[in-house]
């Protein structure tokens, strides 16, 4: 297989897709040599004449400048300076219509020539080889050279390729009809162009330099071939005349067979392409020291008495140039900047020649008829055959008309180079290029709109968050003021008040349930018993003794506390059996016993005296109405749980929550289950929110809690919410399982009443807890404390409580930062909990066991129930 280089050397050229063969009309303007026009009265020099950013002005109004003196200096990305094309005075610096289809004003320097045409001091480099590449690139940059073929890409950027360059291609193709500026330049300045190429050879060190010229320019080909006949690395290549072979990517394929990848640059395939006009400018900059101040422009069209090429100073008004060649405009005259295929019609002739102006075309209607009426597309595909980018113009038209941006992008509209070949061949005379330009602009606009919309949304959300936060802070400030005395009081009368306060939230929920006096009485009794229990436990914490009179369940639990994991199965089986019994009383009693046992187990070491107490309570509850008993049992259990959670402060809130939930559950399991589910959902939601958001949530929940005091259903809901909160807190704690256990506890209670429902609820709760566990633990311990206070305060007026809770939370947070043990910062909440916290580890273990048991029990209960039914 022959290498590309060998094929190139053999003179092979390649074909490109598509292309058209418009009438070239080149000979019109090549009959006379390049002319020189007299100095115009005034030059208008837009500061920006290339792709990239503006240069910085370095002259002032009224200043006299010399020919070649820089007027701006490079500033910013892709910025090149402009220079005074002749000596004269800066008359004004103001926005002037630019040489652009829109003629939008651009900042321009207006220069009045003094007629002397005096050069500034020039520093030619006859021996550029002595200069470094950096110096050469800088010289090219300072000479203000940008691509002169049309796009105006700054030449110095191209002169610093990122990839090694194998082929340097000099573009003398000039495929647009009518334009002969490069042709004439090559004919007249072949020698200089070859020397200019030498400069680039030094910069790129290419394997081959290929000068590509269309075969309809035999004189230019001859001139350049002669000029470089000594040089074996430079090839002058005649290529077939086809539009748009002069397109950079097309030309690269014609002479090297390589296609530049989509969205890539020629340097990606080791190629760099320069226009001959640019090469000549580089020659002048290096060998003569002259900056880019003039260029060859083709003046063509049959409304001119003479078609020719002329050296025009940049800034020369087009009208001046046209008048010079006998311009007689007709009705509906068009003046086209550039060629007939890609050039644009000028809205006025009072516009300047700029660095990229290669042709001014003033055709008559006879020479270039106006387009006919647009007819429907018949999908003949002539456009697709002509498209050099192998697009499907007929499909693009369809989608452009229907504004289908997605399909336009699917059909690669962005790869359209707007060469006009499709519109040229279209039998229906559809201005395809215009459709594509509009569609491209639409797509760009749509993308911009989307970005803007997203930004606006972000801003809006950020604002909402900020407002939320501010509101929260305001609330906290209020609450702090109210909360202060409360706290003091709490610390003073710690022992008694704490117990009461801890029970308060619970009690409230219960109170709501308790619509009759009996219930109320039961509650009161229960509360008393609890208080007593707390005291006993506290007292007995130092000793450990076993008692024979213990209830079976209690014994099991205690044994478990010692042996830990082993016992769990036993107790759970007990639980199961009991839940299945028809006798509600029995179930309740058993549950109570179990719960108490658990509690004791957790209060390592458990004490003698506490046990009779348990028994007593068991008996009491058995004797009482089953419902009451259930309530009591639930409370006991909840307490036990609380103890288990003691090591981590967060748990406290949980237990508080659980208690109220349990109560509610005992009363109306179904309602409770529903409420719990709701609450759980809420909790889940909350869990997802950022920590900052959580605070506000909890505040919201505060009020919820307060509302619970009204009716049983509400209470249930509130309880559930509380649980959710607890869960949230659990997230932050190192042991995630606490929340899980919390969920399971509530399930246990429910299970006693309606095993199936409970089991379902339990599983849901567990899942939820797990989810919560996944969340990253943050420092939000303060949250839990906050919630505790919420619960306590729930009995008060809802609003007040909310405020108070917020304050407490804030305080807790602060405290959390100061001390490792969070418990101490929560005096309001700690009551029996504090006392039970003596051996946190053991308690935790016990709790875990209890939890596991509960889980198992729930499962078994469910399955058993199923079995029973079956």
């Amino acid at each position, binding site marked *: 297989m022959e290498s590309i280089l060998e094929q190139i050397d053999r003179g092979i050229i390649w074909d490109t897709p598509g292309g*058209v063969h*418009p*009438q070239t009309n080149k000979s019109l303007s090549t009959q006379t040599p390049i002319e020189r026009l007299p100095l115009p009265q005034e030059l208008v020099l837009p500061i920006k004449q290339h792709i990239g950013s503006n240069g910085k002005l370095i002259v002032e109004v009224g200043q006299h400048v010399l020919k070649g003196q820089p007027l701006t200096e490079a500033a910013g990305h892709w910025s090149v300076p402009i220079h005074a094309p002749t000596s004269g005075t800066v008359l004004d610096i103001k926005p002037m219509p630019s040489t652009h*289809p829109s003629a939008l004003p651009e900042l321009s320097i207006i220069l009045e020539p003094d007629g002397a045409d005096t050069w500034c001091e020039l520093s030619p480099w006859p021996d550029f080889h002595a200069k470094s590449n950096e110096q050469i690139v800088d010289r090219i940059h300072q000479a203000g050279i940008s691509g002169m073929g049309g796009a105006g890409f700054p030449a110095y950027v191209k002169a610093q390729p990122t990839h090694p360059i194998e082929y340097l291609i000099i573009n003398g193709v000039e495929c647009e*009809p009518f334009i002969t500026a490069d042709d004439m330049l090559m004919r007249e300045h072949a020698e200089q162009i070859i020397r200019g190429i030498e400069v680039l050879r030094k910069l790129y060190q290419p394997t081959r330099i290929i000068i590509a010229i269309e075969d309809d320019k035999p004189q230019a080909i001859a001139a350049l071939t002669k000029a470089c006949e000594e040089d074996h690395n430079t090839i002058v290549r005649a290529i077939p005349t086809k539009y748009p072979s002069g397109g950079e*990517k097309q030309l690269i394929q014609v002479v090297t067979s390589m*296609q*530049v*990848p*989509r*969205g890539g640059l020629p340097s990606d395939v080791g190629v760099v392409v320069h226009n001959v006009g640019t090469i000549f400018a580089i020659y002048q900059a290096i060998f003569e020291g002259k900056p880019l101040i003039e260029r060859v422009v083709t003046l063509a069209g049959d409304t001119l008495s003479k078609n020719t090429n002329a050296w025009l100073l940049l800034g020369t008004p087009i009208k001046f140039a046209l008048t010079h060649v006998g311009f007689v405009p007709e*009705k*509906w*005259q*068009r*003046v086209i900047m*550039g060629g*007939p*295929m*890609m*050039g*644009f*019609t*000028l*809205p*006025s*002739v009072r516009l300047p020649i700029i660095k990229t102006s290669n042709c001014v*075309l003033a055709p008559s209607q006879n020479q270039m*008829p*106006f387009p*006919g*009426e647009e*007819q*429907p*597309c*018949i*999908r*003949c*595909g*002539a456009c*697709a055959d002509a498209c050099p*980018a*192998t*697009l*499907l113009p007929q*499909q693009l038209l369809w989608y452009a008309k229907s504004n289908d941006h997605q399909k336009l992008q699917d*059909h*690669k509209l962005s*790869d359209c180079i707007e060469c*006009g*070949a499709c*519109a*040229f*061949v279209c*039998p*229906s*005379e559809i*201005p395809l*290029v*215009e459709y594509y330009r509009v569609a491209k602009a639409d797509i760009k606009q749509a993308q911009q709109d989307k970005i803007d919309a997203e930004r606006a949304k972000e801003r809006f959300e950020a604002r909402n968050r900020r407002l939320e936060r501010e509101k929260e802070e305001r609330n906290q400030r209020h609450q702090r003021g109210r909360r202060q005395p409360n706290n003091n009081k709490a610390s003073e009368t710690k022992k008694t008040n704490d117990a009461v306060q801890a029970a308060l939230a619970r009690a409230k929920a219960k109170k709501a349930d308790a619509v009759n006096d009996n219930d109320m009485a039961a509650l009161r009794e229960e509360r008393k018993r609890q208080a007593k229990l707390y005291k006993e436990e506290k007292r007995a914490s130092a000793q450990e003794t076993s008692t024979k009179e213990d209830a079976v369940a209690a014994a099991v639990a205690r044994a478990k506390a010692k042996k830990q994991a082993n016992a769990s199965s036993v107790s759970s089986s007990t639980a199961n059996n009991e839940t299945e019994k028809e006798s509600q009383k029995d179930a309740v009693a058993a549950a109570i016993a179990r719960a108490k046992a658990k509690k004791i187990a957790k209060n390592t070491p458990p004490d003698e005296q506490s046990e009779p107490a348990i028994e007593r309570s068991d008996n009491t509850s058995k004797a009482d109405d089953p419902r009451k008993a259930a309530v009591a049992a639930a409370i006991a259990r909840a307490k036990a749980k609380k103890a288990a959670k003691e090591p981590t402060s967060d748990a406290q809130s949980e237990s508080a929550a659980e208690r109220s939930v349990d109560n509610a559950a005992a009363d109306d399991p179904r309602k409770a289950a529903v409420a719990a589910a709701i609450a759980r959902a809420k909790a889940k939601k909350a869990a997802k929110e950022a920590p900052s958001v959580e605070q506000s949530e909890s505040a919201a929940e505060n009020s919820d809690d307060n509302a619970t005091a009204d009716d049983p259903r509400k209470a249930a809901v509130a309880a559930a919410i509380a649980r959710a909160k607890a869960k949230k807190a659990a997230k932050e704690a190192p042991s995630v399982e606490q929340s899980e256990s919390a969920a399971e506890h509530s399930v246990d209670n429910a299970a006693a009443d309606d095993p199936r429902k409970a089991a379902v609820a339990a599983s849901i709760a567990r899942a939820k807890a797990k989810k919560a566990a996944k969340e990253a633990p943050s420092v939000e311990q303060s949250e839990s404390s906050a919630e505790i206070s919420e619960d306590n305060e729930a009995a008060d007026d809802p609003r007040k409580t909310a405020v108070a809770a917020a304050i407490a939370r804030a305080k807790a947070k602060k405290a959390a930062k100061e001390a490792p043990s969070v418990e101490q910062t929560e005096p309001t909440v700690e009551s029996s909990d504090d006392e039970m916290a003596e051996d946190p580890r053991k308690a935790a273990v016990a709790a875990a066991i209890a939890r596991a048991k509960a889980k198992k029990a729930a499962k078994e209960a469910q399955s058993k129930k199923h079995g029973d039914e079956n």
Partner: protein
Amino acid sequence: MSALKVLSSPHQHSQKSLSQLMLAVCLATSLGLLAQLYFFGIGVLIQIVLAISTALACEALVLKLRKRPLNTTLKDNSAVLSALLLALCIPPLAPWWVIVIGTFFAIVFVKQLYGGLGANIFNPAMAGYVLLLISFPVQMTSWLPPAELMPIQLSFIDQLSLVFTGSSSAGLSLEQVRSGIDGVTMATPLDTIKTDLSKGLTVSESLAQPIFTSFAGAGWQWVNLGYLIGGLYLIKARLINWHIPVAMLSSLGLCAVVGIMIDPDTSAGPILHLFSGATMLGAFFIATDPVSAATTNKGRLIYGAAIGILVYLIRTYGGYPDAVAFAVLLLNMAVPLIDFYTQPRVYGDTKDS
């Protein structure tokens, strides 16, 4: 200096126009048309005149109703081309109302109601043809035998009278005119083979019939040859791309070759398939209708090949002797899909697509 005219590039145009393109396609049918005139009489011309006038009248009517410019659309020759193609497919002495109904349906329903030129999904001429074939099967299959086999020579007046009144000046009905001296109705070559096969004859026995005078049936082979030459001109003049005709003819030919290799007794050979019926007209003038055909080159190959296969299948196994119209319409429906999945690789795209 007065205001300058501002226009979008390009400012030059190839000066090809839609009406020229349509007209050129119409003219390219002339060789086949001449052959048809020669073999089947002036009735063909009567049908064409009827079709074109109906088409223009219908188009004008609908354009008026749709409030669209009359002049440019009527001048684009697209209705003329559709009418011409439909007329070429109609038996020359079919009653006048057949072609009028067909053209009306083609122009009003298939073309204009879909949005006019460029927006129709189906080939108007073929949709009109299928409508007629299904609605008036007797009239649509009453092809005359080629003139050389005709027992009675019909004058222009006779033919005119048959088209408009249903009987010749001598009072003979079309059925009587079509019958040979022996009273047996003559049919097209494809018809003959189909009928003979159903009678239990083999293809070679069928080919012994007088209608098969040379390589592919009297008259029809020359008509097809005429369209082939016209089609080659279209390709040469770049009025159509080669993809569809080449794909269609080669797939049809290939199917026929395979068929005859497998079962020579019941299969017509490739030559018969390629040069009888509407094969050449279909391949170069009908399937290439740009509006309803695939528009990518790869898609055109698929489209053409599928038409060829369908033509063969329907001719061989279907109930109709010819199948170009059905095949084209079926593939018209597949065009959007074909086009979407056969987009050419965009210049410089490194991924194969």
